[in-house]
């Protein structure tokens, strides 16, 4: 079993490198009487692109929220790059190297695109309150670098230069998605979680984003885990797919195996007569 293999490697901690970037063990979230995520164990190998799919309400976003620390898991463990990060504060998890985007874009609307990205750099920029007041050279330098990097990242994700100083709320949907990815990249993540990144994009934009994900992985060594509804994107880009339904993991494997799995077909299309 690949899951068991992955977790043991993670448990041994420290060998890093070739092991799993992310692993969960029996991750469970219960809201009152509702089991939103039920005993999910899975691994995401380092430098891979993996997907989580499932019908609406399957618990995908809840699962993401546990990975990033927004929700505390009821049971189970989250192991990131060999260390247990279960229930850690979300800002610390981001600092450790997991970054994310949101299903319903959550940019800071009164900030420009570039300012949004600079905020994403928070964990990488030093500075105390006294640094902010007296603005010593190292703070000025960090500020300048932050702004430069923000513009670089925005260009990297494909936001044209003339839009960098525009209010993020004034940008088109596709550009907002791109700015959000740039903001997530600004924290220099090793694992990037994308929550429905192609929602609201046209087919050409989706294809572009698919290409971009590969580029990210190859050029920046970032492991990518995405939640996605667009099957063309999912099947095209992922090396590993995990299927959730009603909070449970019902299938996993490479795209071919998952596509052929009768349980997956049942979850999406209902039982065949």
């Amino acid at each position, binding site marked *: 079993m690949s899951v068991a293999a992955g977790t043991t490697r993670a448990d041994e901690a420290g060998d890093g490198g070739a092991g799993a970037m992310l692993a969960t063990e029996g991750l469970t979230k219960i809201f009152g009487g509702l089991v939103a995520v039920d005993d999910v164990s899975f691994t995401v190998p380092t430098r891979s692109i993996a997907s989580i799919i499932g019908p609406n309400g399957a618990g995908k976003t809840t699962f993401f929220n546990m990975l990033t620390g*927004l929700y505390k898991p009821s049971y189970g463990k989250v192991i990131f790059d060999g260390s247990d990060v279960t229930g850690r504060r979300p800002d610390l998890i981001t600092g450790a190297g997991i970054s994310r985007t949101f299903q319903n874009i959550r940019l800071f609307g*009164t900030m*420009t695109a570039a300012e949004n990205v600079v*905020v994403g750099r928070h964990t990488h920029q030093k500075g105390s*309150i006294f640094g902010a007041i007296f603005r010593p050279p190292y703070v000025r330098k960090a500020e300048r670098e932050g702004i430069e990097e923000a513009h670089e990242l925005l260009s990297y994700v494909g936001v044209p230069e003339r839009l960098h100083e525009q209010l993020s709320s004034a940008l088109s949907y596709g550009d907002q998605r791109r700015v959000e990815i740039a903001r997530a990249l*600004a924290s220099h993540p090793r694992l990037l979680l994308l929550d429905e990144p192609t929602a609201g994009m046209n087919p050409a934009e989706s294809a572009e984003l698919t290409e971009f994900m590969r580029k990210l992985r190859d050029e920046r060594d970032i492991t990518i885990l995405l939640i996605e509804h667009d099957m063309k994107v999912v099947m095209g880009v992922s090396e590993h797919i995990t299927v959730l339904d009603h909070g449970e993991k019902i299938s996993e494997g490479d795209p071919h195996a998952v596509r052929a799995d009768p349980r997956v077909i049942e979850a999406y299309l209902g039982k065949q007569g």
Partner: protein
Amino acid sequence: MSTVTAPAPARRRRPLTERLPGTPRLQSRVLAGVLIAGAILLPYLYDAGSPFIEDCTIALAYVVMALGLNVVVGFAGLLDLGYVAFFAIGAYTIGWFASGFFAGSNIHVGVNSVLSKLPGIHLNFLLILLVAAILAATMGAILGFPTLRLRGDYIAIVTLAFGEIIGRIAVNGDSNVLGFIHFNLTNGRQGINPIDRPDLPILGQFSTLDLRPWYFLALALALLVVFINIRLRDSRLGRAWIAVREDEVAAVSMGIPTTKVKLLAYATGAAMGGMAGAFIGAFFEQVNADQFAFSFSIFVLAMIILGGLGSVWGVVVGAITLSFINTRLIPDVLNGVPSKLGLDFDLTQLGFGIFGFLLVIMMVLRPQGLIPEKRRQIELTEGTAGEESVFEVRQ
């Protein structure tokens, strides 16, 4: 935020690019220089002991106070209704450390020969400012703690209660603080007086006949606090405050430690309130428990809303305006009006009615404040991410 519900008037919109990167630097610097020069020359146009200088001094103290609250409410978006607590802490700090109140102890640090012969604790005024800032900041952080998990109106309720607690302690602190320590902490309604007058380098020994040193001290404090406000606004911390104000979930997911960032806002704001409190205590030469009422918090809040939440210069204008309405317009100009109309009431008793009326007018005509802050204006006129802003308003 619950304060920004009024519909916005449709105004001519400038192109977006002009809005955020900031106003022309040189122009605003020249303007600031002229204003500061004017403020320095102003007292020489009047008698040294003129009541006008007194009113200006009070207005400047309120500027410090309001800019402190601006950090908490305007920058970080935490509606604090208990700000009077930090005024009280600052005022008692000077009451304790610059008077004969603790007659049993004989501590003198950095004071002149006259004061060093008196019983009690007498510290140098600058030292007291520092102590007041630190004490208030500590209390600010402590107050912030229970509000960390709360949002919007609930923060307002908790902070309001905190302000009331400090107010009650001030009134009842003359014998039995917290019910078990038999110790006179505040001298209750009798208050602590007289408080030492500062004796500072350059400005010399302060007196009641020459109000200019008081004015200059207040001006220096106000400029310092303006400077700190601007620097904080344009910093990594300032951005983090905006992020937390706009979308806490997104902020924390970007690695911003929301707890720390919010506590820093409370502590910074409180420190400024504490300094202003110490100054006002020294200026009136007394600290009295009746000063620390809930209405004071509202008064300062009204200043920043009138001027423009989050806008540094707006808050300065708002504070000066309301302070002058309070010290000049109502008692001197308007007070004769009711009797002329054949009515028999004291208009000074209606101060808060007048402020309330002003705020209502403002909310109808110019909800973003006299000098609006750019981001706040965007939030008001365009709303941020559609449904999210509705969610925020309802919170």
